[in-house]
């Protein structure tokens, strides 16, 4: 049974546990710091990076604003080129459409290109229920699937695994899914890659149905684009007879000209490469070449609702490069699973609560899973101001306010568990707006400073368990000023 993200605990609890995992922390630290430095070097090569970045944001914003124009245009052009377009309002509908399409072929197995959006909809589990086996063919997704695990990174889903663990997973599980691992498999990367290659090859050659996502959809011609590093995508996109692509509606760009921007921004930001090894583009179907049937499933699943939020909508610009994960100090310690979604890290902290709504304590906790250090915004190739959106979503959690759910504008109430904090914030706000009261509180704290405890009880323990409390000075600055400058307090 494929694991799902259902019923995951709120971020602080999951993160408290994963932060204690020394191996995980060491793996993540090594991986993210390596790619961090490489990305910086790849980006520094381009003199016009800031202008590219601004263009990347502007084209996405404009396209998102006019999706009502570009999506029908895309549909028209995909259809004209021999494809069939399906519209899915939510994850269940998308999974149903895909399941029915696979059933109609009479096939019981499919090969998959790495796809975030089918992780989002939980497609593999839905197919499994319908008796259809989905084979992940991206190396890291294969590791995750064989290990009955969940992805923890957008680009490198098995980033939390060391090579010895991967060797064990291959050795113990490959036989359950097809060709077993070679005898005496070592943990050398080349040997592991060769084992995966042999295991996957027979699936590429056998499977008649391929399932993919897409990085971009070009409205003017109905062309889909997949960028990848391993070539497994190219196999899945060209060898099967039927190709089904599930794509979020925000992946649309108007013209080929616009691709120029993103095909520079994406590889440098994600793998720190000037250009990714494989860029596959296809427009509908072509006689005697590639799949004979092509289906495009356009997925909404909360995107239109997100688009209605004027601060939060910038999250839809995301091109899934994962640069924000690689620089995030919180992601580096907590790991991807703590975010309870296929979208971990800073982008996940603003995407998940918007796509799913503030549906459970997990979604409510995600906007707070950041120290607001701003490193994510700095590296984002489409200039998503993630800290701004985080603060905005925090407000929706603690104060409630207007949101759009299923296309309907509604007002949500403040989350219950923040009642104590709300009272404390109100009191602090009042004291700060009444400096006389603030001064009285400061003097009281100064008079009692000798008896202040070193460790706090209750919620204060969260501070004093690992940090000394600051000593309260004998005299506040305010009182010092009044005393030495002779002004009346």
């Amino acid at each position, binding site marked *: 049974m494929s694991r799902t993200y259902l019923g995951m605990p709120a971020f602080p609890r999951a993160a408290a546990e994963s932060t204690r995992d020394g191996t995980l922390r060491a793996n993540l630290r090594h991986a993210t710091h390596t790619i961090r430095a490489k990305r910086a070097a790849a980006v520094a090569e381009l003199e016009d990076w800031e202008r590219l970045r601004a263009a990347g944001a502007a084209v996405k914003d404009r396209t998102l604003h006019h999706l009502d124009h570009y999506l029908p245009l895309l549909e028209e052009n995909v259809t004209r080129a021999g494809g069939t377009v399906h519209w899915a309002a939510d994850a269940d509908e998308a999974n149903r459409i895909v399941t029915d399409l696979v059933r109609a072929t009479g096939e019981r197995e499919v090969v998959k290109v790495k796809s975030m959006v089918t992780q989002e909809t939980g497609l593999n589990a839905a197919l499994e229920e319908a008796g259809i086996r989905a084979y992940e063919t991206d190396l890291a997704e294969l590791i995750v699937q064989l290990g009955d695990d969940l992805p923890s990174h957008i680009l490198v889903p098995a980033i939390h695994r060391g090579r010895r663990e991967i060797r064990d997973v291959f050795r113990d599980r490959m036989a359950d899914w097809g060709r077993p691992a070679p005898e005496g498999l070592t943990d050398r990367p080349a040997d592991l890659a060769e084992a995966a290659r042999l295991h996957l090859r027979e699936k590429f050659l056998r499977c008649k149905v391929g399932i993919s996502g897409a990085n971009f959809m070009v409205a003017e011609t109905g062309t889909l684009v997949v960028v990848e590093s391993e070539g497994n995508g190219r196999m899945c996109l060209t060898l099967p007879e039927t190709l089904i692509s599930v794509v979020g509606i925000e992946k649309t760009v108007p013209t080929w000209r616009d691709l120029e921007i993103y095909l520079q921004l994406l590889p440098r930001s994600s793998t720190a490469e000037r250009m990714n090894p494989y860029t596959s583009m296809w427009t509908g179907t072509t006689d005697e070449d590639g799949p004979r049937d092509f289906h495009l499933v356009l997925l909404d699943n909360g995107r239109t609702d997100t688009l209605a939020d004027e601060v939060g909508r910038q999250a839809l610009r995301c091109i899934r490069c994962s640069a924000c994960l690689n620089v995030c100090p919180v992601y580096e310690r907590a790991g991807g699973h703590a975010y309870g979604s296929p979208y971990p890290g800073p982008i996940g902290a603003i995407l998940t609560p918007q796509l799913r709504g503030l549906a459970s304590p997990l979604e409510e906790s995600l906007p707070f899973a*950041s120290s607001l250090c701003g490193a994510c915004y700095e590296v984002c190739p489409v200039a998503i101001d993630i800290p701004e959106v985080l603060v905005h979503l925090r407000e929706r959690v603690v104060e409630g306010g207007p949101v759009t759910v299923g296309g309907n504008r509604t007002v949500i109430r403040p989350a219950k568990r923040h009642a104590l904090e709300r009272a404390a914030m109100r009191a602090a706000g009042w004291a700060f707006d009444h400096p006389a009261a603030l001064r009285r509180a400061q003097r009281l704290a100064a008079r009692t400073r000798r008896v202040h405890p070193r460790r706090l009880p209750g919620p204060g323990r969260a501070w004093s368990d690992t940090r000394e409390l600051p000593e309260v000075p004998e005299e506040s600055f*305010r009182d010092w000023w009044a005393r030495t400058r002779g002004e009346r307090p």
Partner: protein
Amino acid sequence: MRVGLFVTCVNDTLRPSTGRAVVTLLERLGVRVDFPTAQSCCGQPLYNTGYRHGAEPLLLRTAAAFADHEYVVTPSASCAAMVRDAYPRIAARAAAEGRPGEAARLRAAAERLVPRTYELTEFLVDVLGVVDVGARFPHTVTYHPTCHGLRALGLRDRPRRLLEHVEGLELRELEGADECCGFGGTFAVKNAAVSAAMGADKARAITRTGAAAVCAADNSCLLHIGGTLAREDSPVRTLHLAEILACTDGVVP
């Protein structure tokens, strides 16, 4: 030149020595310093935790308190960033919410305050045009650039240039300097485990420099870093940059 010192609530309450150091430093450089007592908190703790509406009266209060000052100087990068980035945003959000009256007042207040507000090192380097403030501090020091100073304000090498001109000071490089210390306001208690892990890594890097002190342009980060260092019995002490720059006899007041 009349400067209003925006000391900030954290410094006022917990680190008055930093406020006193700013006064000493600026007066030594010939600046007339004023402390309007109507000031309190910029509203950052409320705003960053999601209580934007609670921050509105503090925006108006801060702007009113410094209405008559040519310059507003604060020894806190994050409070300066709050004024510069969040104040205009708070006004814009009020307008978007259909509250034109409040929005107009907030916008007017923000527009008056923002262009006059300077973080201390910006004021020293950009307005006064000094990098040698006549300080003497014969100790080894490392510098933590804090996220708001580094990324929100873009202080770049201003603090470093000031430190490099301090007589006798030996600056030690901090590994991973641009990484967050893990404070993050209410993040420090809401996600205590991750915050503590970040703090421990930062504290370890600081201790490894072998410096006698770590300095920064923001005391809120230093409370977290200092609390972590102290709990780990590290010999390194925390100092606000202003306290070093104010020092002429080599002894921190």
